[in-house]
């Protein structure tokens, strides 16, 4: 293809996106579009799968049978999200094994929030309420993103995430209606998860490298700072409603902006965790790599078995044919 032909294709491609048409896996797409989408969708898939670990940590210790069942179902939903996000990613010409390899080698990233430990039951509430809450704010705009398989996956993911968020908030409500010990547990969880949740919406716009191109492809529809503001404005009244105090002395309603002003985020901490030095980075990777390597003989067996079955079938149909003739 000549350079001019490629330029033409690119122009047509951008026009399709501008017209809100969906790009499908078999359509022509610029290499950069493909790569960016593989990166973002796989990062999202990895986040779902690594995100199973901090909550999975409380399955055996959930305080009631009802909570245990809800938590199991929630973590299972995350596995499901991982599964169809990996599938969406595979339509771009990369295998799940390759994607895992990128995760395990540290080449691919996942949401840094999952590198914090879950130390009390209240963390199950805080994660549902704040982490899933922030995730929804990030993801709702993606239901209209340009890449068809990703947009469709997001519609389902968002529905389930919003259920998880309500469930998390409900855990917090219950704690805040409980004993002093329970209230303290809830407040402590908010204190630990508040700032990492704000960081979850990404670096400030000035520091964000991918934003402009991503906006054009509708991979991103609002800037990180706008999303963060939206999250804060939405969450502060929810905290106040149940008697929780946001751990930010600078938090104040700004009448003029119609938004909350908030304190300085500790970006050093953010970058430290992103670079792999958070409290749980090593443990999370160890668990993922452990499950993958420990499961290799199982996957090999399944493969060998299915090959044997195939062979048997072929032999059977060959001998059947012989009989017939």
């Amino acid at each position, binding site marked *: 293809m000549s350079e001019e032909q490629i330029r033409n294709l690119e122009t047509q491609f951008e026009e399709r996106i501008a017209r809100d048409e969906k790009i499908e896996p078999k359509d022509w797409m610029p290499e950069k579009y493909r790569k960016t989408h593989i990166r973002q969708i796989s990062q999202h898939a990895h986040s779902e*799968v690594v995100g*199973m*670990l901090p909550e*999975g940590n409380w*399955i*055996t*210790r*959930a*305080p*009631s*049978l*009802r*909570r*245990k*069942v809800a938590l*199991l*179902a929630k*973590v*299972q939903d995350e*596995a*499901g999200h*991982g*599964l169809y996000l*990996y599938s969406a990613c595979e339509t771009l010409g990369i295998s799940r094994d390759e994607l895992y390899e990128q995760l395990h080698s540290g080449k691919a990233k996942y949401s840094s929030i999952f590198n914090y430990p879950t130390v009390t*039951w209240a963390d199950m509430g805080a994660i549902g309420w704040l982490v899933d809450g922030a995730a929804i704010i990030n993801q709702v705009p993606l239901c209209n993103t340009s890449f068809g398989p990703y947009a469709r996956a997001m519609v389902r993911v968002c529905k389930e995430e919003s259920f998880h968020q309500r469930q998390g908030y409900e*855990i917090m409500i*219950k*704690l805040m*209606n*409980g*004993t002093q*010990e*329970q209230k303290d547990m809830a407040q402590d969880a908010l204190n630990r998860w508040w700032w990492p949740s704000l960081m979850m919406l990404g670096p400030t716009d000035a520091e964000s490298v991918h934003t402009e191109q991503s906006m054009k492809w509708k991979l991103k529809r609002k800037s990180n700072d706008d999303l963060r503001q939206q999250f804060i404005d939405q969450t502060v009244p929810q905290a106040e409603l149940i008697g929780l105090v946001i751990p930010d002395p600078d938090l104040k309603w700004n009448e003029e902006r119609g938004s909350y002003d908030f304190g300085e985020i500790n970006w050093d901490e953010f970058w430290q965790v992103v670079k792999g030095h958070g409290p749980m980075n090593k443990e999370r990777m160890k*668990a993922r790599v*452990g*499950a993958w390597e*420990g*499961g*290799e*003989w*199982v*996957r*090999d*067996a*399944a*493969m*060998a*078995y*299915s090959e*044997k079955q195939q062979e048997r079938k072929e032999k059977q149909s060959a001998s059947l044919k012989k009989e017939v003739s």
Partner: protein
Amino acid sequence: MNQNLYQYILGIADNSLILGQRMGALTGHGPSLETDIACTNISLDLFGQVRSYYQYAAKIAGDKRTEDDIAMLRPEREYVNVLLVEQPDTDFAYTMARQFLFDIYHFLFLTELQKSKDLTLSAIANKSIKEVSYHQRFSSDWIKRLGDGTEESHKRMQTAIDDLWRYTDELFHQTEADKAMVAEGIGVDVTTLKDTYYEKVAEVLEASTLEVPESKYFQKGGKQGVHTEHMGYILAELQYMQRAYPNMEW
């Protein structure tokens, strides 16, 4: 309160509770995302059944006891699950072997429990058997895949089956409460399931190129509340919140 019926329900439900707890602990650590989801599903099914049984037991007890009190606040000696379900997840072969050896029993048991004169129990059995029929298919398929997969998987699967075999006979023991319930047409006479159980198990093992263990030495005690050393640790996690924060709502 009908003590025998109460005790009988625990005898059924505790198996699902402990196996559900074991399977739930694996969430996020499965050999593939698909098996991870399936194992969590089995755990979810089992806990769903557990809740129905304990809610019924709480009703029979007729005091302030709740399903959670029954699930999480008994001393170890009062849990009456079979030893099989508390055995650890040494590797995925053990997980599937434990599941399989229980599922085959569970399916036969629920098939009979559906005929119980106790309408609540027969309704729970009726609902659960659909789930358990799936569990049975899932674990049997894995016995075949691992048994007839690679040399390594075959070896691991055979080891797991050999090792867990000693816990199978207990499934067919009857407690005094069991006998009383059988006499009333409420309980299932498990002794009548034994032959079919071993036939079905053998059928799957043979189709998986695995050997049926010949050992006649079996372990028992779970139904009397005398457990293996694993049980205390399972309960330590299961009961942690209820013990550390008594009398609270969650």
